[in-house]
């Protein structure tokens, strides 16, 4: 649970994501997705309850828990005066990693996202999408067991989005775990093993696509299920809005 004064941002989220799973976290704006993910990443402290990464309690042993973790935030803020290459080296250093293998990995990641030519250029001249690609690379550079991702597709071009989807799929197939929040329902539908829908700080539905269809009492794609479960039906007001 996470409270800010009297406001409850996250209330009673109880989740277990097993090794090798790609878990999708959906919900309307302000539902508590980012707060939940930031608690899992150790950036925010839960008001009550615990977070465990690979069996390690993040409050009791934050260093050990965070060694297993990589985090990709929704807004790509990075040190503007470091080059892309230096940033990756710095992040690897935070996880006490260095050497030819890490450097090779960094080069491979930059090449994967078409950033190789920008390696020695300061981040201040990167576009939003390029920064996002660099942050994604930084989350993979130290090979974490678990990656927590908040809105990974924002600002990515179609090619990078495709690469990222393949990367996520391949990474989980190798036994790593990814927990991702997204508004791109097509991505969630095609990638995630299980999906959780959060609203008002509480999990409204949880399970595979088949489970969610049952919960929503009807067929259709994830968009229909999402709108049914979250009660998001703004279409009726559109005429009023446009004519106002």
């Amino acid at each position, binding site marked *: 649970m996470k409270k800010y004064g009297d406001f409850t941002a996250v209330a009673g989220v109880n989740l277990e994501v097993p090794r090798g799973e790609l878990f999708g976290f959906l919900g309307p704006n302000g539902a508590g997705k980012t707060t939940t993910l*930031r608690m899992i990443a150790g950036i925010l402290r839960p008001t009550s309850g615990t977070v465990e990464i690979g069996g390690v309690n993040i409050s009791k042993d934050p260093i050990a828990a965070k060694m297993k973790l990589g985090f990709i935030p929704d807004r790509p803020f990075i040190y503007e005066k470091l080059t892309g290459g230096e940033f990756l*080296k710095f992040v690897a250093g935070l996880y006490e990693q260095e050497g030819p293998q890490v450097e090779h990995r960094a080069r491979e990641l930059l090449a994967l996202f078409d950033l190789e030519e920008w390696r020695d250029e300061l981040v201040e*001249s990167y576009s939003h999408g390029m920064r996002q690609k660099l942050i994604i690379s930084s989350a993979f550079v130290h090979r974490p067991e678990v990656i927590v991702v908040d809105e990974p597709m924002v600002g990515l071009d179609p090619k990078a989005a495709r690469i990222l989807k393949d990367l996520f799929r391949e990474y989980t197939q190798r036994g790593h775990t990814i927990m991702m929040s997204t508004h791109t329902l097509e991505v969630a539908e095609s990638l995630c093993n299980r999906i959780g829908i959060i609203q008002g700080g509480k999990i409204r539905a949880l399970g595979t696509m088949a489970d969610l269809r049952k919960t929503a009492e009807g067929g259709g794609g994830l968009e229909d299920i999402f709108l049914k479960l979250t009660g998001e039906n703004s279409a009726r007001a559109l005429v009023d809005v446009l004519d106002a």
Partner: protein
Amino acid sequence: MPEAAATTGARAEVRPDPSLWHLLWPKYLTIRARGTGEKRGRGARLALLGTFGFLFWSFVFGVLYRLLLYFRGVEEIGPLLAGKLLGMLLVGFFSILLLSNIITALSSFFLAKDLDLLVAGPVDWLNVYLAKLVETVLNSSWMVALMAIPTFAAYGIAYDGGWAFPFIAAAVLIPLLVIPGVIGSATTLILVNVFPARRTRDILSVIAVLTAGGIVLLFRIVRPEQLARPEGFRSLVDFVTVLRTPTSPYLPSEWAQNAIMSWLQFKLDYLPFYMLWTTAAAFVVFGALLHRGLYLKGFSKAQESAARWARTGLFSGFMHRVLNPLGILRRELVLKELRLFFRDTTQWSQLILLAVLVVVYVFNIKFLPLKGEGITFFLLNVVPFLNLVLAGFVLASVAARFIFPGVSLEGRTWWLLRSSPMSMGDLLWSKFWVGTAPLILLAVTIVGVTDYLLAVAPFMFTVSVLTIIGMTFAVSGLAVGFGTAFPQFETENAAQIPTSFGGLLFMMSSIAVIGGVVILEARPVYSYLRQQTFGDPYSAWELGLGFGLAALLCIAATVIPMRLARTRLEAVER
């Protein structure tokens, strides 16, 4: 759908033109929100800031008022001296305003976040210009305007300016603030059209710092204190002639001086008022025309970022090897700090100003009249000891500018540091050492060189150097501690961070610690010097206690704030 069609048709004819006030409205709301936000401890902050502000004003007013009363008593040349002094002050204000406006205009006209909205919106170019000009003038002039209050008050009261004097002062000050505002924004507009905006910021930082440093250096090397001695002139007539000669008849500061002095001497001259207001009005018109012609091209250019390549150089490789014993994590943290500092022109360029201040400092010591009759061994060795206080203040100011903002500047990258497997202690100590190491070098250089110039005894030399090292640790610890306790995570401009409430508290604490160390060491140093000068005995116990307590104070001022900072940082949630 006749109604809908009518609505659409009517909409097509509407030509929205947001007023100037409408454009300034969000700025007003921001200021109001800042004023009403953060209720906790607001009263105490206001009281403290108010007290300091009042004390500072009183000091400026007191010094000027006494000086002006003295001038008033001097026949013939008294008013001339008062006018000359006002002229010098106003030239100073005008120079500061010019530099400050050039730099502020770059942010408000080309880099501000609201510009996309304004430029893309159906807003008249003149209103954009005027709104941004008002913003620039207010942001760059508030400090000068605050300084002007006790200055004009002293003149008004000393020369019986009467109830209308505040209005006269305002009538002089307003155009005096507008003119540099227009010149500054026009200069920036031209520069941005020549260079990319981000490169312009770098160039401007260096130009501004070099100019400021040059002015300080020139002013000191000229040794103006010699000019204050009329006996240096061949005759009184020469002296009066120099005073009567207008120093800069084309400068608005000179018109402002004439306007104020004409009112205070009951010989009201309207010409300087006309000159000030018509020039300000004409400048605004010319500035607006220039804006119409060049702004869009400049704004478009400002969106381009200069290609900025950085390769790992020899220095980086050397530092890598030097820092290797620290381990990977700490080494990378320190290297990151160094790269961010030396690649940011706005940061390192201030080192030039620092170098100038050190030169001025040493220059002042060199010209202290400490030779000849009446200068005893005692006096010669007390001066470097008291000098430690001044050196301590210099260190505190440098720490406020370079170490205090360290944690605040991590605000936007907090997600990375917090989600990484490192302790907050590692982060804080890396910031501490990156700041402390050069500060120690600076401190030892200042004290070492001045002590050498003064030819002090070896004992005092050792005491001075060890004390300043202890003070440096304490000041750095306090800077990291207070910088963490009062972070300004949303402020991107490092130079603004020390001007916060936390910055003020840091300076007060540093001064208290510096004062405490000097007081604790005063007794043993006094005993030693008496023994050396007059042969009085001194006790080793007294010496040990004084220096021991001073060392303890320095250690406490280093370690306690660092520990508190760590606790505070671990609780930060963003």
